Structures are given as structure tokens and as C-alpha cells.
């Protein structure tokens, strides 16, 4: 980790400038504060200051019963609420040894992959906006809107999507859900191709992203990078394949892997991941078995047996984990969230040093961080 840069008494050096970026800044994706040491426009050092959005979610969880905790998870990574909810309910299910019905499993997978699409679309939008491609920003938001409409119909909410319960789903899909998702899946590849026409062949986009913010596979593992940022460095690690949960083992999909670990590869990996997510959705829709969506033997009062449990899922941003220590009561003794964004952000310093100030913005965008998740 970097040493904290003292901004109150900066050393007088005519060549260096300390620039405070954030917490109120258009390109820090929320309330991230980055203190940069600049030599001209070249970054010589930087330090991330987090915690502006701290709400004490982990502490709150210690004072809530297990079913009451679930909605708090929608508010950590608020861009991918369903993935977070999934991680929590699966942890409890794993602790209780619950077997959940197939229909619920497939529905969960469809919704989580839709969430991945919406999260990646938001990433694409803001990343493109940071680099100056304003039009892609609005095009991606237009498509995300379609997903949010499906969410609104399913969950009754666009942002804090919440329908996963310990033991299954609280309700089955509404009439017309399948048709709506299928229409979306049919149209989405053409939109994706549109974004790629705007960016992939654009010389400016290439020169802004290729070779910027390189991180090697080993360094990425050392830091704890997960998700697309890790895969872009050439490490094939996806929890959906490595430790399959739900019904992922029955679905056919590829894991895109990059080569150079630069901003452009992270972009390519996420774009390809969107295609794969769509593939999963279409397969899962065809395989929807029907039947109950709630496991039969879930008791009204949930008590997790004494012990320590860890479960992780492949959230859109990386490995999202929940560590749970239970004393056998109705409330967890300790619950810790492993947010992918927090660990991914640690790579920012290593990626940015030696690059220009404008590249820091591109790199933050390519890491795809959400401050709600980092600060919890």
C-alpha cells in the first residue's frame, strides 16, 4: 500500500503538484477521493481515500435476523442488486444445507445475468463518458433502460431489486416475463455491435486504452483482483466455472480471457462477457422447468448452526463473498462482505504510476468500481 500523502503540509517542490481529485468530481464514480502527485501531467504517486459513503452495513447486520438482512445487500453494490442478494441468500442456504427448487435456480440465474448486463452497460456508459465518448453513454443507458423495465415488472423496483429469499424466490415469474426477456435478448446483440462500431475501430479510443494501466497476471493475483479485471490479465478464474453454484454447471458458456491486462483488454473482456451473459440467459429461459420456487422445509425462524461460513459468487465486478460467523442464534455474530470493488481499487496505484493524469480517469473507469460497495 502507498504511504499517505500529507496534503496539509506539502513539501515545496516546484516540479510536483498535489491534486485532489474528488470526492466531488465527475470522473470518480461516486465519492472516491484520489490524491494525486503530479509531475507536470505525469502521475508520480497517488492515494485513494475512501469511506465517504460508509453506512456500517456489516454492523447493522449483527442486529438483524437473517431474513431481515437480505435487503441491506441490495444497497451495497446498488448497480447489481440482484447479484448481492444472491450471494447472501446462498450463504445462508449453504449454512442450513438447503436444496432449492430448480425453477428458482434458473430464475435466479436469469435475473443475475440480466443484472450483469445492466451493470456492464452502466460500466460501458461511464467508462466511455470518462474517455469522452458521450454518445455511447446515452446509447448504453437506453439499452439498460430496457433491462430496468423487466426488473421493474419482476421486482417492483428498478434499483434495489429484491425477490430472492432464503430457500428460493418469494414469487414465480410474472406472465410474459419469458417473452419480454426473449425480445430483449433478440435485439441486444445488435446494440452491442453498435457500441463496438463506435469504439473498437476508433483510433482515438484505441490510443486512449491500449497499453494503458497494464497489470500482469501475477501482480493481479497478489493484489486480489477478481472478475473481468483479473481475466483481462490472462488469468482464467471465474467462480461460475471454478465453484459452480445454482445451475451454472448445466449451462454452456465461455470465459473470455485477455492477454495484456491493459484498459483495452478489460474493455474487450467485459464486452464479450455481455455476449456470454446473453447466451446464459437464452439457455436458461429454454430450460425453465416450472414447479415450486420455494424449498418446502424452510422454517419460519431461521437459526444458523454454530460455525463459520464463507460463500462467494461471481458478481459483475468480481468475486463477491460473504463471511458469516454464527453463534447459533437468529442473528449473525459477525458478517463480513468481501466487496470486489474494494480489492480491485487497490490496483489503481500500481496501474497509474507513470501514466498521464487523463489515464487515471480511464483506469478508474476500467476497474468498474462502485463506492456503495467499497464503503459499505
Amino acid at each position, binding site marked *: 500500500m502507498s504511504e499517505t500523502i500529507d496534503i496539509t503540509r506539502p513539501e515545496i517542490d516546484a516540479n510536483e503538484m498535489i491534486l485532489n481529485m474528488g470526492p466531488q468530481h465527475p470522473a470518480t464514480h461516486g465519492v472516491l477521493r484520489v490524491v494525486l502527485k503530479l509531475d507536470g501531467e505525469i502521475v508520480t504517486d497517488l492515494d485513494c481515500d475512501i469511506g465517504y459513503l460508509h453506512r456500517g452495513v456489516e454492523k447493522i447486520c449483527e442486529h438483524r435476523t437473517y431474513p431481515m438482512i437480505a435487503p441491506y445487500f441490495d444497497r451495497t453494490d446498488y448497480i447489481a442488486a440482484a447479484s448481492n442478494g444472491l450471494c447472501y441468500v446462498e450463504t445462508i442456504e449453504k449454512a442450513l444445507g438447503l436444496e432449492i427448487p430448480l425453477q428458482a435456480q434458473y430464475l435466479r440465474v436469469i435475473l443475475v445475468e440480466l443484472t450483469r448486463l445492466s451493470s456492464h452497460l452502466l460500466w460501458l456508459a461511464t467508462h466511455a463518458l470518462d474517455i469522452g465518448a458521450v454518445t455511447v453513454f446515452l446509447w448504453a443507458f437506453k439499452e439498460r433502460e430496457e433491462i430496468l423495465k423487466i426488473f421493474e415488472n419482476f421486482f417492483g423496483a428498478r434499483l434495489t431489486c429484491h425477490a430472492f429469499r432464503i430457500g428460493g424466490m418469494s414469487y414465480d415469474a410474472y406472465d410474459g416475463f419469458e417473452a419480454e426477456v426473449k425480445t430483449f435478448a433478440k435485439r441486444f446483440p445488435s446494440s452491442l455491435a453498435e457500441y463496438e462500431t463506435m469504439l473498437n475501430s476508433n483510433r482515438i479510443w484505441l490510443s486512449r486504452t491500449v497499453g494503458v494501466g497494464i497489470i500482469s497476471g501475477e501482480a493481479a493475483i497478489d493484489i486480489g483482483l477478481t472478475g473481468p479485471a483479473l481475466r483481462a490479465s490472462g488469468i482464467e478464474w471465474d467462480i461460475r466455472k471454478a465453484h459452480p453454484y445454482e445451475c451454472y454447471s448445466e449451462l454452456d458458456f465461455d470465459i473470455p480471457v485477455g492477454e495484456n491486462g491493459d484498459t483495452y483488454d478489460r474493455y*474487450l473482456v467485459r464486452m464479450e462477457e455481455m455476449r456470454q451473459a446473453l447466451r446464459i440467459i437464452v439457455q436458461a429461459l429454454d430450460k425453465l422447468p416450472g414447479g415450486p420456487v420455494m424449498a418446502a422445509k424452510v422454517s419460519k425462524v431461521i437459526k444458523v448452526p454454530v460455525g463459520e461460513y464463507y460463500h462467494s459468487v461471481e458478481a459483475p465486478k468480481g468475486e463477491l463473498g460473504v463471511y458469516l460467523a454464527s453463534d447459533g442464534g437468529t442473528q449473525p455474530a459477525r458478517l463480513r462482505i468481501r466487496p470486489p470493488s474494494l480489492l480491485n481499487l487497490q490496483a489503481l496505484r500500481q496501474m497509474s504510476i507513470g501514466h498521464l493524469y487523463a489515464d487515471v480517469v480511464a483506469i478508474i473507469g476500467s476497474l468498474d468500481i462502485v463506492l456503495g460497495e467499497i464503503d459499505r
Partner: protein
Amino acid sequence: MLNYLALSAPKWLSDSPILHNRIDPDVLDYFLWPLTQIVVLLVVVLTLVAYLTLAERKVSAWIQARLGPNRVGPLGLLQPLADGLKLLIKEDLIPLNADKIVFAIAPIISLVAAFVALAVIPWGAAWGMISNIDIGLLFIFSVSSVGVLGIILGGWASNSKYSLLGALRSSAQMVSYEVAIGLALIGGLMFTKTLALQDMVLAQARLHIWIIVFQPLAFLIYLISGIAETNRAPFDLPEAESELVAGFHTEYSGFRFSLFFIAEYTNIVIVSAVGVTVFLGGWYLPGLSYIFEPGSALFVLSSIAVFAAKTLVLLYVFFWLRWSVPRYRYDQLMELGWKWLIPAALANILLTAILFVIAQQLGLIVSNGNFLEITKLGYVFLIGTAFIITIPITWIMLGQINQRSRDFNLYEAKPLPMNRKK
């Protein structure tokens, strides 16, 4: 002399029964008429600038599958008024540690520099312009250089790091691209043999051609540098909102901000207008003189309309580019300027000059006093060589210069298809 300066009031005005013999002709020619022109020009340009902001928002909305402003007035046509009013009544904030005097002067310098350049642009034939000075083009360059001063002072006086970085970037950018612009225009000057802008249009009218046909490469360089010169995307680094918040005008608000804003849009109008004058024939449109009698009021008015139409087309190109491409990085921008545009402009000058001399030796071009006469074969020769010789040779030369540059080899360095693993 009077006619040359285009100061004199048009005949139909000075001979009109209301004014005839009532006002001293000198007072009319030297004072009343130019003043009227200036007032009309300022009102028209200010309105144009206001509506350009609306046009930009509408164009961007169409590109981005949105509706754009449509609440104030029919089709949002009163939006500029609402914006202007909002900026006027907003709190005028001066940062505590700012250099207050410089902070106040900076936007005024920018605005004045932008407006002064309007005086020499030939908006139309005859009395359609204010003054046709001999050094018209140089005048525009020198005045627009002063505009950079406003930006530097504004960024410096704000006493903010973002403003300072923005100001430094923009001054470096504007100074480097001014070189490219100047060099690109020289190619056009060879055919017009004058720096006076009205005479350049007349020269093109005499040759019955737009210079762009002889100088396609120069026009391209001019267009790119012009966008960079006015700090527009993809060269909008001085105000790159994702990096520098708002660049040199981060600390400005209310009316002072709007002064910078008006200056920026006025500069865009000027760059388009100069491009139209030098490369696109100004107000000259083949066949216009057959419809209206040259010199008549209708002819002048229609020439103004032609000029406006051409300028608007260029402005649309500006908007179109802004909303289609991402932003350059600072070093890449400098590289584009110094390693691509300036060498290309220099090569263009050299090749054009050589071809020009060859054509002269062959008797295809005859210099006739201040004007050129080109034979039919000469047209074919000049147009053909511009496309067949100048562009390929320049392209090869640029490739040689930038052989080792990273950006030039992007595609080779990076295989595009994704390495997919099961």
C-alpha cells in the same frame, strides 16, 4: 480607397430620398453606415451564438436518440433566452483567493478578441462586410492569439489547480495548432494571391472554382486544426470534464462564465467563416451572378445567405464530430499537431509550390497582375495532381516520420480478436 475599405454606404442608401442631401456623405460613409453594420453584425452573431447552443443540444440529442430541449417555447426555441436569463441572474461568484481584477478582465479579453475578428470577415459581397483590410487573414490570427491570453489569465487568476492545468493545456494547444492552421492556409493563398478576405472570395469567383478543389489536403488540415484551435471535442482537453471538471473556467459562474461561453462559440463561427472564405469560395456560388445583377441589394443579400449556409454546414461538421468521437489525451494531441498536421501542412506547401511552378512553366497558369488565369488544362492539372501527387506523397512522408510512434502501430501491436478459452 474608400471603395477598397468597403466603408462607403451602398448607393441605394446614400441616394435614397430620405438621406439624400440631408446628411453629409462623409458622416454617412465613415460613421453612420459602419456603425449600423457593426450593430447589425453584433446582434446577428450574438443571436446566432445563442441558437448555436440550442442547435448543438438538438443535434447531440438526435445523435444520442434523445429529444433535446423542448420545454421552453415551441420546439424549445426559447431555450437560449431562458439559459441567458438564468446565467444573468445567477450569483456572480469570485473565489476568495482569486486575483479579482484579472479574474474579472479575463473573460472580457476573450470575448473582445473573438468579436474584433468578426469585423474583417466577408459575410457577403460589396457592402456585406465591414472592412476589407489588406492583412485580413493576419489580422484574424493576431487577434485570435490574444484570445488565448484571456484563457491563461482566467485559469491563473482563479487560483485553482484544475483551472491552472486547463489554462496551461489550452494555451499549449492553441499555440501549436495556430501554426498548423497558418501553414494550411498558405496553400490556399498561393491561388488567391492576397490576404484580404474579400479579395480572396473575388479571386475564387474569378477562377470560377472553390480553392478546396485545388487544396483538399490543406482543407482537411485546416478543419482538424480549427477544431483543436477552438478547444472542441475531440480536442476539448482544456475543459475535459472527466479530468479537469471544467478546465480554465471551473471557478467561473453566472455572467462571467457566459462571456467565456459566447467567446468560445464566436470562435467556432470565426473558424468556420474563415474556412468558408478561403476554401469554400466564401459567398461565391456558381450561377448566382446570373440570377441577380451583381452589385444589387438582392445580390448582396443572397450572397450573405450563401455564406451563412456554407458556414452552417461547417458548424454542423463541428457538432457531428464532437458527439461521435472520444477525447484525445494531452500528449497524443501534441503528437497529432506536431508530428502529423504540421509536417503535412509543410509538405502541402512545398508540393503545391512545385506543382504551381511546373504549371507556370508549362503555361497552364498565367499571372495577370494580382490575379491568376488558369487554362482548362491547368484546372485538370492542378486538381489531378492535388489528389494523385500531393496526398499520397504526404501520406507516405507522414508514415515515415511516425514509423516508430506507438499510436501509428496500434493495430500491429494488438491483435483485435479475443482469445477465448472454454
